[in-house]
């Protein structure tokens, strides 16, 4: 029986390894191994005895070779993540490592994978998950950026003005919205590189061909490369601005009409199916809640809801966050006791149908409450309350899981993206990373 031609020998940092070309083929052409075994570099005909020398760490090589063999990542305790990532980067296998580290997102199978403690002073404003597993955290006037390895990059700021919202355009570009500084033309909205932290572009608001300084609020992005932001200008530039992601130019502006609120919005959400933007301004930013759907094609407010004039006797029924669910044609809202409510989008002027799930919460409110937040991900609804996040599923939104960790205090914001959930706690500047483990072996 001859030796298989497939077989390949390595000497890595003095340790011998044997593997097959088929295993290495899993690395792909754009990797060290892909190039090494490309025809162009396969200069001398392979002999049985030829051993490829690689001047690298052999322990890591062993882990990565196993990764190529099985698709599973098993890191012994003596290898730090940083070392492993460094070696994976050398071989061009970082993407393989990331893909093996956590599985496709499922709200009911989440495990706490890491807790990152920041050094920022004060409470966090917002946390946003990036598309490839990284995240950014806004604290006061600075935004800290973490890649998927949870390595921190240079923090970003816009003239050190207070940050209102941040968002990822793609894995390398972050948009930041900030308050204006009176009279200096600072603040507004900027585009930053997530890896280097450089300011790449500053978005402008024009009214009657004049550039105005403005405060940028909530952000949203659409798949057809638009950026939306609620804006407050000096005089009457209140409303929602639209910019093109590619050119950076302002393409549209939806002015706020009297008696309604757009420029102060807490939340913008682009609805792709309806081709509309949800704009929600909520208590306590304003005395009342205003939720509306804007159609920019004909500058029309196609749907709206407000609690102006509704009986306020039952104080707890105040809407604290809202999210549109296109599949069920409704808007889900939440009050400060984490009661979920639903508004039908197909009717104009409908009322909230509360599902009074639990009044128990009222009794045990913590000292420093955080208002609930909502998120929707592939048919699963998430709502944060105090120090835990609830997961709801099914057409009737049944509570199926609860994520909780005692350390760090109440959750002030959370975000889902890149198959990870990030929860920002208001004390200690801690954020938790929740992942779905890779699928079981059998």
């Amino acid at each position: 029986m001859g030796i298989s031609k497939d077989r390949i020998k390595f000497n890595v940092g003095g340790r011998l390894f044997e593997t097959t070309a088929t295993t290495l083929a899993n690395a792909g052409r754009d990797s060290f191994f892909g190039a090494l075994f490309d025809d162009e570099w396969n200069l001398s005909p392979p002999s049985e005895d030829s051993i490829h020398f690689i001047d690298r760490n052999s322990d890591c090589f062993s882990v990565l070779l196993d990764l190529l063999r099985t698709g599973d990542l098993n890191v012994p305790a003596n290898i730090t993540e940083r070392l492993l990532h460094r070696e994976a980067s050398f071989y061009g296998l970082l993407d393989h490592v990331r893909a093996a580290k956590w599985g496709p997102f499922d709200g009911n199978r989440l495990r706490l994978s890491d807790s990152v403690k920041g050094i920022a002073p004060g409470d966090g404003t917002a946390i946003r998950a990036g598309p490839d597993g990284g995240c950014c955290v806004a604290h006061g006037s600075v935004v800290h950026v973490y890649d998927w390895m949870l390595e921190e990059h240079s923090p970003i700021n816009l003239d050190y003005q207070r940050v209102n919202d941040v968002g990822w355009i793609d894995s390398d570009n972050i948009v930041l919205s900030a308050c204006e500084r009176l009279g200096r033309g600072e603040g507004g909205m900027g585009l930053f590189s997530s890896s280097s932290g450089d300011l790449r572009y500053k978005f402008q608001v024009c009214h009657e061909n004049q550039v105005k300084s403005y405060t940028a609020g909530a952000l949203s992005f659409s798949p057809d490369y638009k950026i939306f932001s609620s804006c407050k200008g000096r005089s009457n530039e209140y409303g929602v601005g639209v910019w093109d992601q590619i050119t950076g130019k302002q393409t549209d502006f939806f002015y706020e009409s009297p008696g309604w609120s757009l420029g102060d919005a807490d939340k913008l959400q682009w609805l792709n199916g309806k081709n509309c933007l949800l704009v929600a301004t909520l208590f306590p930013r304003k005395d009342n809640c205003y939720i509306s759907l804007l159609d920019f094609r004909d500058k029309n407010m196609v749907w709206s809801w407000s609690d102006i004039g509704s009986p306020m006797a039952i104080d707890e029924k105040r809407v604290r966050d809202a999210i549109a669910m296109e599949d069920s044609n409704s808007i889900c809202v939440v009050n400060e006791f984490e009661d979920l409510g639903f508004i039908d989008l197909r009717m104009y002027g409908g009322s909230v149908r509360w599902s009074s799930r639990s009044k128990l919460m009222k009794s045990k409110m913590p000292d420093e409450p955080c208002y609930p937040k909502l998120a929707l991900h592939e048919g699963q609804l998430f709502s944060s309350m105090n120090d835990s996040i609830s997961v709801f599923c099914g057409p009737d939104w049944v509570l199926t899981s609860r994520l909780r960790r005692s350390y760090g205090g109440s959750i002030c914001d959370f975000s889902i993206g890149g198959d990870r959930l990030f929860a920002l706690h208001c004390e200690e500047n801690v954020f938790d990373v929740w992942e779905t483990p890779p699928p079981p072996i059998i």
Partner: protein
Amino acid sequence: MSNQKKRNFQIEAFKHRVVVDPKYADKTWQILERAIHQIYNQDASGLSFEELYRNAYNMVLHKFGEKLYNGFITTMTAHLKEKSKLIEAAQGGSFLEELNKKWNEHNKALEMIRDILMYMDRTYIESTKKTHVHPMGLNLWRDNVVHFTKIHTRLLNTLLDLVQRERTGEVIDRGLMRNVIKMFMNLGESVYQEDFEKPFLDASSEFYKVESQEFIESCDCGDYLKKAEKRLTEEIDRVGHYLDAKSEEKITSVVEKEMIANHMQRLVHMENSGLVNMLLNDKYEDLGRMYNLFRRVTNGLVTVRDVMTLHLREMGKQLVTDPERSKDPVEFVQRLLDERDKYDKIISTAFGNDKTFQNALNSSFEFFINLNARSPEFISLFVDDKLRKGLKGIADVDVEIILDKVMMLFRYLQEKDVFEKYYKQHLAKRLLSGKTVSDEAERSLIVKLKTECGYQFTSKLEGMFTDMKTSEDTMRGFYGSHPELSEGPTLIVQVLTTGSWPTQPAVPCNLPAEVSVLCEKFRSYYLGTHTGRRLSWQTNMGTADIKAMFGKGQKHELNVSTFQMCVLMLFNNSDRLSYKEIEQATEIPASDLKRCLQSLACVKGKNVLKKEPISKEIGEEDSFVVNDKFASKFYKVKIGTVVAQKETEPEKQETRQRVEEDRKPQIEAAIVRIMKSRKILDHNNIIAEVTKQLQPRFLANPTEIKKRIESLIERDFLERDNTDRKLYRYLA
């Protein structure tokens, strides 16, 4: 300083800066640079990929990414400059080959260099947003080779020259061509477009401008189109062989513009071979080619269609206004149908059943058919001819086809009510004389007319059929109640409802006693079974079968008209009768009598009577005897009446008048209908609305409408507005 002096010795701060060998970067780069040289010189066998990769990695890791990046660019640029000199030195045909060879080498080298610099590509370049190694290598090739002044124009000219040579029939190395063009495409769309495609299109435009001029001077239209089509397929093939697929649209539009659009008018109107000639000679292939080519250019089909329409109208006008053709209505209509079939076939085989062409065909027919006021009559006569004899031995399916075609012509008619009038007359004749060949065909046509024009149009026609059916039953009842009549002459009566049938003045005549007795019996039977009815005899429309024995004992059964029967019966009692005597005895009006006698005595083979003196015309002084020598090989002899098949001039006038008379109430009804809903309307709008409402039946004459309005005002249906005299008001 003084402070330090006090101390005896000094411990140096433990602060060694980590210093990398200052020459580290240069040394490492030198290794890599040498490797790049070796790769370009195809001498890479001694290189270790692992070592080179690690060195490049280390340079990036130790923050020498920029040095590495710039070094790679400088080294590659130097190599490419050298290569471009070698390419430039290649002579004649080997120029392209050399370029292609060097391009392949560069690609291979670039691939290997990219492998070595893979880590830099992924980290340093990614985070500094510089151009990646592979596109950078292509850019360098573009700037140092393709755009090198001594290569740039030479390369373009070589390529264009090759294309030109292929166009003139030479065989070129398409593989090499494809590789070089592919190089342009790999360098980016803008390079391909700017450095090759645009000049290529310009040169092609020039080439086809000259060639099309040449062709148009020397070829006829058909040949020209063939050549244009060939050129077009050649260019499409060329794109398939060695150009970017996106160029197809551009190059075909150049050919289309130069070869077709610019010569469109001249081609269509070309003497003896243009469109009209093709249409006349049914050149389906040429027509199809013209359609397919002209379709590609703006206004191409419009041009073809306009010329076809013009020709059709001219041809049709000649056809329908030619007095010679009007002599035979059947032939006239057949010609129309033939023309329609011809153009139908052209449109379906050559013009891809193009809807706009079908519309043009229809509108042209509509235009010229109505140029001849007798078209409705002729079409009805054509149907009459077909239903009388023409449909014998034709399968049902074919009957349907003929009827459908007739309906097609019918649709073109503006004066559908005139057609109805004639059709009624002709149908009446067919029904009463029992000449109709196929009841089914008759009914089928009526159904078609009904779907086309509605219930009203055909209600009277259907009434005629009902009368025929009822009459049969009545006759059965009559003979059932009079069993004694089974002996002797048989009378068959068809009871026609007044109004359903074309009115004919009842021409009285004296019936022979045998018949008149029978008629009376029937009258009393019929009036006995139906109350409140009146019967009058239309003797001018009847027929009779009589048995006759001639001098030499020949027995025949003669099929004659009622008038003829009356005349013949007289000869039972006398051998010779003068015209006057006959007229007196029968009281048949002179014109009818003359016609009847003419058919009995003057038609060869059917002359049961003999006239003295012998001549073609009947005179008042003539006398008649039974023709004893009458002979016929048939037992049954049909004696026709000399009837004018086409209407005579006064008859035509009469029909016309009747049509006009019938239109009056219809126009009035339309006016009242419109005014009832609108209450107030001005004159012009009334005219327009009435015309529109009546269009499916006939084209209303504005003066006639005006007259009807006046008449309605007189009868207090409408009034004029007191202030604005142009306004009419409806009076409820």
